[in-house]
Every structure is written in structure tokens, then in C-alpha cells.
């Protein structure tokens, strides 16, 4: 119902509650949801996210994966809210507010510019959106996609389809070797870099360990890296401070979720995260530098 739009606070602090337009199963553990929220879709850029209200359960952050047919996001089933979310069907009500945060910054495109996009695990949504945008802006795009197994390669078909539209090379890697290279998205990226390291920028999203390793890798090539981070979010609009990652008070929900990796040196990036209480917990992952 749009009758009192004039009187409503902006959609970044008040959810648009609307029936789901469509649900698609993307991988065994991931479904994509599309909702009608033109005011969000119109302004969203890749890397921005929405807070998704699963009525009766919780409100959780989800990256926007597309704004073509409505606002789309893709959620992996990991806990309470995402499990309930996966039970919802077309027509069920969902709340979304956004677009939130700052997205990827696209360098000025020229004919020479080639962009590397790297997605690991559940990191595909913002990268898929970014790929579409980069192509529309005239970039030559290479994509490195990684997952645990072939079945879990999120948005594989979507990236594949983009090969006809502007994706130059699309390399996948799986932990179990069931598709592409044996390894992670960082290994896929390494493969691409080995062939042609002339990237003007790299945008990445995925598990934080992967982002750290990717950063180490790209520093060798001096390719500027933008990473999309995840932190526990409470307000999503920079008010509560729960998602802060450094002493300057950088908020993942507000200054991020996309950061220039070079600005994260003195931050919690790759080191610690906070749980729902605000307690700090060390991040554990396998490093490629050791």
C-alpha cells in the first residue's frame, strides 16, 4: 500500500513490507528472493545491501544481487532467520529497507580497462550485481568464482550467461575439485593473474579469510582491491556502532560494507569480529602467506 508514502520516513529506516515476487533455488543451500521495492531498486548500486525483515524472527543484512526484475537478494540457509526465509514462498510478506551502506566504486572506464571480480562462497550476490554494472559501464570483466563444490557455485549460470555480454574470462574453483580448479576463488584469481595481470581494479566478496588471502595476492601486483565485508549488524544505518571495525569508528553498515583493502590495515579486517552481544571473537582461517 502506497497511500501514505508522503508521510513515511525514508526506506532506510522503515521497511517496505511487500509480498515476495519470486523465489528461486540457486544452490542446495541458497535461494534468491525478488521483491518489489522500486524506491530501493532505483538507487541501489552494487555492494549495497538491504536489511531483510523475516516477520516474527529477525532482521538480517543481505547484499543486493540484482535490481532488474525488482530487488533481488540471495540467502544461504545458516540459522534461524535464513531457515525461516527459505520456507517463504511467492506472495508471502517480507520487509526490506535500504539501500544501505556504500557500494563498490567503479573507476572511470576506458577502452583499456579490465576489471577482476572475485566471489567466494556466499559472496556472489554483490559480485553478480557488480558484473552486470561493470559490463554496462564498458569494462572488460574477468570473474573468479569459488565454492565448496560444483553444486554450491552460486550464480554460476548467471556469470556463464554474461560471457556473451562482456565477461571475458570466467574461471571457477571448488574445494572438492568437482568443477574447475581444485581450490578456492583465490586460486581461480591466481590463475587469471598468471595469464594477464593487467587489471585496473579488483572487487571481491566472500569469506574474510579468502579476502585476506586475495589482498596479499593482489598487493604483489599492485592492483587496488575493494572488499565487501560482513559484520553482525543491528541497526544497519550507522547509529548503534555494533559493526565498527577500527578506532576511527568505520561502520561496515555505513562507511562499508565495501572498503578499499588498503584502508583496512589498522582495522579488525581478518583479525576479529563481534558476535550479537558485541563481544570480540578472533577470526580463524587458513592463510596463504604462512
Amino acid at each position, binding site marked *: *500500500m502506497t497511500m501514505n508514502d508522503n508521510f513515511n520516513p525514508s526506506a532506510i529506516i522503515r521497511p517496505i513490507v511487500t509480498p515476495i515476487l519470486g523465489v528461486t533455488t540457486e544452490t542446495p543451500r541458497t535461494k534468491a528472493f525478488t521483491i518489489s521495492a522500486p524506491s530501493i531498486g532505483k538507487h541501489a548500486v552494487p555492494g549495497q545491501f538491504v536489511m531483510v525483515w523475516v516477520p516474527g524472527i529477525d532482521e538480517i543484512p543481505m547484499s543486493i544481487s540484482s535490481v532488474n526484475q525488482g530487488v533481488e537478494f540471495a540467502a544461504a540457509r545458516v540459522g534461524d532467520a535464513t531457515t525461516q526465509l527459505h520456507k517463504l514462498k511467492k506472495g508471502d510478506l517480507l520487509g526490506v529497507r535500504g539501500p544501505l551502506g556504500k557500494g563498490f566504486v567503479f573507476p572511470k572506464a576506458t577502452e583499456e580497462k579490465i576489471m577482476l571480480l572475485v566471489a567466494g562462497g556466499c559472496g556472489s550476490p554483490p559480485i553478480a550485481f557488480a558484473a552486470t554494472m561493470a559490463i554496462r559501464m564498458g569494462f572488460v570483466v574477468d570473474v573468479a568464482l569459488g565454492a565448496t563444490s560444483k553444486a554450491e557455485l552460486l550464480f554460476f549460470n548467471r556469470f556463464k550467461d554474461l560471457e556473451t555480454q562482456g565477461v571475458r574470462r570466467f574461471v571457477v574453483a571448488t574445494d572438492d575439485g568437482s568443477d574447475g580448479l581444485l581450490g578456492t576463488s583465490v586460486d581461480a584469481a591466481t590463475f587469471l593473474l598468471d595469464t594477464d595481470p593487467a587489471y585496473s581494479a579488483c572487487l571481491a566478496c566472500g569469506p574474510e579469510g579468502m579476502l585476506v588471502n586475495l589482498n596479499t595476492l593482489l598487493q604483489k601486483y599492485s592492483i587496488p582491491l575493494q572488499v565487501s565485508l560482513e559484520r553482525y549488524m543491528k541497526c544497519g*544505518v*550507522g547509529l*548503534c*556502532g555494533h559493526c565498527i571495525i577500527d578506532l*576511527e569508528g568505520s561502520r561496515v553498515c555505513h562507511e562499508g560494507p565495501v572498503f578499499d583493502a588498503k584502508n583496512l590495515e*589498522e582495522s579488525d579486517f581478518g583479525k576479529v569480529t563481534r558476535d550479537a552481544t558485541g563481544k570480540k571473537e578472533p577470526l580463524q582461517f587458513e592463510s596463504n602467506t604462512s
Partner: protein
Amino acid sequence: MAPKKPAKNNSGLAIKIGSIELANPTILASGVLGVAAGGLIRAWQGGAAAVVTKTVGIESRTGHPGPRIVGIYGDSLMNAMGIPNPGIQEYLPEIESTIKHEIPVIGSALGNSPDEFASVAEQLAKAGVTAIELNVSCPHVGSLYLLGMDPQSVTEVVTEVVQRVKGKTPVWVKLPGSTDYPCLVKVAQAAEAAGASALVALNTLPALAIDIESRRPLLGAGIGGLSGPAVKPIAIRAVWELHQAGIAIPIIGVGGILTGSDVIEYFLAGASAVQIGTGVLTRGSTIFSNVCNEISDYLKEHGINQISELVGRINDAGVSS
């Protein structure tokens, strides 16, 4: 990375809250940005003269399920965070790294009993906080709101806390968002008599907002606390009632402050300092310096040397309580 102290180009803004001297009257309110040291530092870099921590207790709390905030008509807000906090032990490092930058930190404490309040306060005091703020007034956490409406309970909590911090660290009491001013005055008097050094008025007001599509409350907890411009005239009334009633300890005004004008209004009603929370959403984390600049302009235009000269200087002749 050493955060830079904001430029102090505004004269006439220095104030005192009892023995505490602050460079300007704006303080970051509890629960905003304060989960992490970086948030407290950000507010201070944005111009806040002091910062109040997130309210912390003995045990950790995950807080309420989302949604935890919802916008209300007219730049106002409702929240039901549910006071998530990692517990005082885990939180102390955040306080310490903030204090390291010579930022005056006010530690906000909650408890299920006078003893719990006092235990948290003791640890805050030991960490070197400038003052302790007792949150006896969160409207969406169990019985906290009711605690703050009961003079007897407030007496017990404040007495215990003041005794345990041995009068070394000033104790502030944050009052509930009540429109029952006679009751509020009694609570304030109880707090003052029990040794509180300042009062903070007000916490958020208990409220409910409903989504008419899902027919559910718009906040995960159902009930939430109203803040922002909607509550300003109510909180200013509270400050005025307390001032009128002869409360002698300083009153810190909080609720809906967006501009320097708002601060002047609070001062005229009887406040000696203010806190800003929701305004951080409306004007960003530099709201503190923006507001200070606006206050400076006002003082200059009106030939006033010190903002503190304005405390309680409302011309309310003929106005009856």
C-alpha cells in the same frame, strides 16, 4: 592511528557538571556508536566533549531480535536494541582504549539488583571513567523502566553504587521517559538525596509501532523506545519540572536535539549539559561540532559570554506548573 582532537574554535562553550569540566556541552548519548571504542572516538572527533558508553551489565546480553530500529514520522525513531552488550569484563578494553585518547568517558551501567549495579560501577570506576551513568530507565528491557519510576528502588540502587565507588566517581542517574512529572520529581529527589551527582533526562519513551501489512510490531521486541524530535518538548518539560522543583545537582538534557537552538532551549529550561543520540542519524557523527558552532553563533549574536549563563534562565513569569 591516533585520532585527532577536534579543533576547539568555539569559546564560551565550556561547562561544568559538578566537578567535571567539559570543553562544550554536547555529550554522546548511551547506546549510540558506543559498542566499540572506535564509535566513541568517532563521536569525540565529531565534536562531542564526552561520550557515554553503551549500557553494560555483569552478564552479556544478545539483545532483542530485529528489527531493532524503525523510523517514525518527523525524523523520530523507535528502537528496541535490548541493550546488547558483552558484559563489563569483555567491554572494559573498549573503555580503556577510548580513555587512552584522553576522551572523557561516562560508563553506563545496568543491573538486576543494587549489588549488580554497584559491581558494574566499581569496574567502570576502576577503568577510569569520568562518571557513571545508571540506566534505570530503558523502556524495553524487563523491569528497568519501572525501576526508574519507583523512588524507593532508585534510592537503594544509588545508595549502593555511591557507597561502593566511595564517592570518588560521580554517579549520574538516567531518568525514564515519563510524562508523570510529579513522580519523576520524586525519583529525582530520591536520587539526589542518595548521593547522585547529576540527573540525565530523559531516556526513550515507551511506544509501539505496527506494520499494517504483516500486522506485527515493527520492532522485534514489540515495544520500543521513542527518541528524536518527537520527544524533545516532553524532555524539556521534564528538565524544567526538575529545575523548578529545586533539584540542585546538574541536569543533563537529552531527547531530540538536532541543532544549537535545541541545546539553548534545554539550557533555558534548566539543563547544564546535553546528550545527543538520534541526531547522529539525522546529521551524522559531526552533529556535535555542528551544534557547537550553532551555539557559538547564538552566543555571539546575543552577546552572551558563556552558555552556562543560560542555565534555567527561561523567563517563565506567569507560567504555572
